[in-house]
């Protein structure tokens, strides 16, 4: 059952909740949803899972952007309620008619909701019962695909025939088989095969082909007509034979694909097929609608060509409401622009979806263009993402740790060659300048020369270094270093680790051990600004491995990002965005040069400006 359904404004005022469902929710799933999903530009997702003590909920939501309303439904995760999406869209429709900005109570919506819920439940029941009824719709759509396939197959077969003109009769034969395959597929999908059917579909598929071949085809169809149902099995056998003959032809694989299906024209297969379709059905519909949108889009340029006057008029008059198809071209351009700035493709895509979700249904003001509206929305979204949600004031935290008499431990992690040791030295230099005593711990016990490299930095900066040589367990070295630091009252311990690829399981396990054993105050991911699409993989895998391989219930994840080589990338600053979006951690430092002083804070506003330039 539905746990709760809420309607609230973007400002945060709850307008309506269902009193009948008035179960007390455990924890605060709504606030969690808003904070960790909607405000993180993840509203393009379909559902949000919330776990609290003794409860696990799934939340679904929908926006009404023009009125600034949000509709959220909450239900127990174990119940897969299928009607929730349906119900939400109905509630949205009905409620937006009632809504008035000055009104804050909507008692009269109780009855409407009750009715809507009943309706939605009934429809869900019906859908469950009417599995067989759902069949025709599905088979139709599938059939369309089949026809397209058939067309391909026929064309290919046609080509084949051209190549083997001298052996026309055999060609004829094969053609007939092709068509036979297509038809038997159609039958398998629920249309009973009769002779009439075969007759019908043969000319149909023939229409796709070149007219020259039609004659031959009709001959073949005649041949086919003469076949009765009984020898069909025989025929199938024949096809396998034929197939063997053209083993090296490219069309082979495609046709082979359909063959086994045709052979298994039994009831059982059909039933299994339908069983899956219930779940798939929506998907199919949605993919269809996508196709429709594509078509609309492809039709759009024509609209644009029709004249700038109409678009001008539209921009002056102000368009009624923004639809997804209106936004699509502008969003695509924006996505491309983000990608040229080295933002990972996946992230650019998600961001655009989220921006689309926030704009869809909004009214376009007069004298504004869609592209500028989209750009403004994107700018706001980027600013929101890059604004850190946790404090980036490390000095403050160091002082707090000092008061407790503990050293503040920072672990630097990252893939190979991004500049962990170099930037560790820069951070050490920066801390030293603020009268904080620093100690380095050389826990890269793997790469030769790593300890020496760190020792050189330590000598230049005149700070102590804790080292145990190579081939030691880095977790133990780090632990001893921290003990040493609390003995000689160092304020900060900077732990250098070996670089590792995110897929290297044993090394990731070692890192997880190091972090869990020592419980550092800050896990700093060092990533280079040059990275493109791989940023997503690196950060998500590091985070995931740290979570998976940890034994404690609340694993330590990446708390912050140090972006290196920032001076080399000119305006391709997209890596900063990709990393922050994926991990949710802020960029704490930016390394931008070769000397110790080249450590900066991230200037969020300039990054946003550069990204949208």
């Amino acid at each position, binding site marked *: 059952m539905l746990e709760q359904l809420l309607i609230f404004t973007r*400002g945060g005022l709850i307008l309506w909740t269902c009193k009948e469902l008035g179960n007390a929710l455990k924890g605060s799933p709504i606030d969690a949803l808003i904070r960790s999903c909607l405000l993180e530009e993840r509203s393009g997702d379909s559902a949000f899972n919330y776990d609290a003590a003794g409860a696990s909920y799934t939340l679904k939501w929908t926006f009404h952007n023009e009125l600034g309303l949000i509709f959220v439904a909450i239900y127990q995760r174990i119940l897969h309620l299928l009607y929730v999406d349906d119900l939400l869209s109905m509630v949205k429709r009905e409620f937006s008619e009632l809504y008035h900005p000055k009104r*804050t109570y909507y008692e009269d919506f109780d009855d409407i909701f009750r009715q809507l819920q009943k309706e939605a439940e009934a429809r869900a029941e019906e859908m469950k019962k009417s599995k067989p009824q759902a069949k025709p719709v599905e088979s139709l759509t599938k059939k369309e695909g089949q026809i397209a396939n058939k067309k391909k197959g026929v064309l290919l077969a046609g080509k084949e025939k051209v190549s083997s003109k001298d052996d026309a009769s055999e060609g004829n034969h094969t053609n007939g088989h092709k068509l036979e395959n297509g038809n038997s597929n159609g039958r398998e999908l629920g249309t009973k095969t009769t002779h009439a059917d075969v007759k019908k579909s043969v000319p149909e598929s023939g229409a796709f082909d070149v007219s020259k071949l039609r004659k031959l085809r009709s001959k073949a169809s005649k041949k086919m007509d003469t076949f009765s149902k009984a020898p069909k099995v025989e025929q199938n056998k024949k096809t396998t034979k034929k197939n063997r003959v053209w083993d090296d032809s490219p069309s082979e694989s495609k046709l082979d694909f359909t063959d086994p299906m045709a052979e298994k024209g039994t009831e059982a297969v059909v039933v299994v097929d339908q069983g899956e379709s219930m779940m798939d059905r929506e998907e199919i519909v949605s993919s269809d609608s996508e196709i429709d949108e594509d078509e609309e889009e492809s039709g759009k340029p024509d609209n644009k060509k029709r004249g700038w006057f109409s678009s001008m008029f539209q921009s002056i008059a102000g368009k009624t409401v923004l639809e997804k198809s209106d936004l699509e071209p502008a969003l695509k351009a924006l996505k491309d622009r983000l990608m040229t700035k080295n933002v990972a493709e996946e992230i650019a895509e998600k961001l655009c979806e989220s921006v689309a979700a926030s704009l869809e249904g909004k009214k376009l003001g007069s004298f504004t263009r869609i592209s500028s509206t989209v750009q403004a929305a994107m700018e706001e979204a980027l600013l929101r993402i890059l*604004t850190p949600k946790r404090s980036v*004031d490390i000095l403050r935290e160091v002082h707090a740790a000092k008061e407790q008499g503990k050293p503040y431990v920072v672990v630097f992690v990252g893939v190979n060659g991004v500049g962990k040791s170099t930037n560790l030295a820069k951070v050490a230099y920066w801390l030293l*300048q603020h009268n904080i005593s620093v100690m380095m711990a050389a826990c890269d016990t793997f790469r030769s020369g790593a300890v020496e490299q760190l020792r050189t930095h330590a000598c230049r900066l005149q700070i102590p270094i804790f080292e145990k040589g190579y081939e030691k367990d880095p977790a133990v070295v780090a632990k001893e270093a921290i003990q040493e630091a609390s003995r000689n009252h160092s304020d900060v311990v900077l732990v250098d680790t070996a670089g590792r690829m995110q897929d290297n399981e044993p090394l990731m396990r070692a890192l997880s051990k190091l972090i869990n054993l020592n419980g550092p105050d800050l896990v700093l991911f060092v990533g280079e600004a040059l990275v493109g699409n791989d940023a997503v993989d690196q950060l998500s895998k590091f985070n995931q491995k740290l979570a998976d391989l940890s034994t404690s219930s609340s694993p330590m994840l990446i708390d912050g990002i140090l972006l290196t080589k920032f001076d080399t990338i000119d305006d391709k600053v997209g890596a900063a965005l990709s990393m922050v979006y994926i991990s949710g951690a802020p960029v704490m430092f930016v390394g931008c040069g070769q000397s110790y002083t080249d450590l*900066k804070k991230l200037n969020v506003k300039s990054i946003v400006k550069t990204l949208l330039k």
Partner: protein
Amino acid sequence: MEQWLNQVFITQEVYVALAVLFFTSVLFLLFRLFRRTKSNTIVLAGLSGSGKTVLFYQLQDGSSHQGTVTSMDPNEGSFVLHSETSKKGKIKPVHVVDVPGHSRLRPKLDEFLSQAAGLVFVVDALDFLPNCRAAAEYLYDILTKASVVNKRIPVLILCNKTDKVTAHSKDFIRKQLEKEIDKLRTSRNAVSEADISNEFTLGVSGQSFMFSHCVNKVTVGESSGMTGEISQVEQFIREHVKS
């Protein structure tokens, strides 16, 4: 002769045009200045979950309705305070803005600060200690903003949810915040000069920080949004927005 006359006329026209332009621009500037001085905007700020939105609706409607959730957009409204609606005579409405407290939405505050006549910083008195540092940081950011310092925007630190038994007293909260800001002052001034967001230093150097050191007036008050006990806010608003 004719040419000379013509020239005179043309120059005269130019002068007239210039005069008109000058006159309108002066009027426009005056108008803007006039509006600036009579700003009636009160900004509600504070951490997420401290009760700003409830306070906003208490001021507007005198009721918290059916509860609130985390805000995603600012709430804005020009209205006559609910407690004053029964009063007779013409009362000037107050423009109240409730800025979301989520840290990702903080940049929005700057938009409203430039026209603020007063700022109410809402602190959760019930759940104060875990959020103390975050609250202090936010307050520090606000108090060091150029727009706040230059225009001397008065700030009311409002300890909300005082109806609850376990809520901290306002003196305790004030002391804790002062202590935290004092620490922040040393650490923030040290942060590298690359991206300076805090344009001003707070308080008197060499002394531990007190709110009385601020150039703008900082006061501390108490309220309870849920029970509607908000007289100190209303008092603050009426002090700085004349009715």
